[in-house]
């Protein structure tokens, strides 16, 4: 049972699946925080019924905003040494959480990515998603001189130092993925990947579904990656931000 970490579960209109996700998660972790991002269904009530911590956004602000609220809550409580992000749609098997936390506990890494592509997996990801992930993986690895196989994974672990950085304006408020990995590496944080397996989402649509969203995602991620790759003051900014909180 994981006791030293806070598992942050952002949720938006996940009433159909949140109950089963939380039931499974509770078998592995003690501290679970659901951030309901202004759902219009019964997500908030369903999550509360499971006896976990639940915060509710008054309006829908997006996935990254919900994560940021989770980090803010977690940093205000000293009991949590580490934070893990976990999708509410049942994609992430909680059995891998321990594997993600261990490098943080051993101080081998400040930011751990649960990678779907480090080892061959049974579940086949949709072609376009896999192709996009591979493309961002190539450029991320190139820019930080470290092999990163899955920079778009939503199953990550981080320590309090990284969480402080995530509370700043440097944390993108839409899709924090490969750009965040580049930012952290250039700030001097240690990054590590561990192999995880993921399942098919229980939901029919995701935040990247449709025609316009993937195009916007690609454009936004590319510009954000270039932005962090070109900045020269990230180490200095890290020192400033670490002293603020």
């Amino acid at each position: 049972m994981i006791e030293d970490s806070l598992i942050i579960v952002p949720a938006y209109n996940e009433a159909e699946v949140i109950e089963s996700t939380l039931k499974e998660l509770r078998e592995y972790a003690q501290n679970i925080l659901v951030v309901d991002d202004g759902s219009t269904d019964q997500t908030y009530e369903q999550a509360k019924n499971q006896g976990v911590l639940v915060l509710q956004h008054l309006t829908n602000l997006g996935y990254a905003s919900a994560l940021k609220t989770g980090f803010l809550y977690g940093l205000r409580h000293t009991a949590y040494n580490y934070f893990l992000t976990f999708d509410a749609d049942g994609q992430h098997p909680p059995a891998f959480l321990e594997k993600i936390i261990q490098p943080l506990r051993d101080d081998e890494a400040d930011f751990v990515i649960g990678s779907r592509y480090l080892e061959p997996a049974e579940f086949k990801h949709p072609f376009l998603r896999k192709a996009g992930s591979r493309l961002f993986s190539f450029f991320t690895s190139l820019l930080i001189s470290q092999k990163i196989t899955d920079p778009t994974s939503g199953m990550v672990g981080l320590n309090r130092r990284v969480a402080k950085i995530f509370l700043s304006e440097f944390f993108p408020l839409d899709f924090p993925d490969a750009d965040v990995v580049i930012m952290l590496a250039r700030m001097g944080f240690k990054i590590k990947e561990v192999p995880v397996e993921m399942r098919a989402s229980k939901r029919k649509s995701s935040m990247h579904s449709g025609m316009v969203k993937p195009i916007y995602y690609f454009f936004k991620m590319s510009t954000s990656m270039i932005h962090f790759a070109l900045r020269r003051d990230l180490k200095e900014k890290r020192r400033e931000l670490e002293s603020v909180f």
Partner: protein
Amino acid sequence: MFFRQKIFAIVAAVVLILLIVELIRRRKLREEYALLWLFTGLGILILVLYYPLLLWLSKLIGAITPTTTLFLFAFLFLMLISIHFSVKFSRLFDQMHKVVSELAILKKELEELKSGKDKSPQS
């Protein structure tokens, strides 16, 4: 520039300026947002009233007719206003996130206080 064009441009600029001033007076528009709009109105008015300036500007930018210059500058002002609003929206979103985030945490703490138990871990 034809007389009718001149009159129309003057009336449009004056109406725009009066509208902005009235909106500020009624506290429906903050001064900082009104600044660019006022510049737009005043800019049109100055260019129309002081015709040699409009001719000089047209020559400078290579426009054939003075009306083209007026339209071009109106377009540039509108573009500036749009960029100004985009920047404001981005900042407003960041501010809204902070407010919503804090409210979510405060609501949780209030619920815990009301129910007389503190389920949250060590603060």
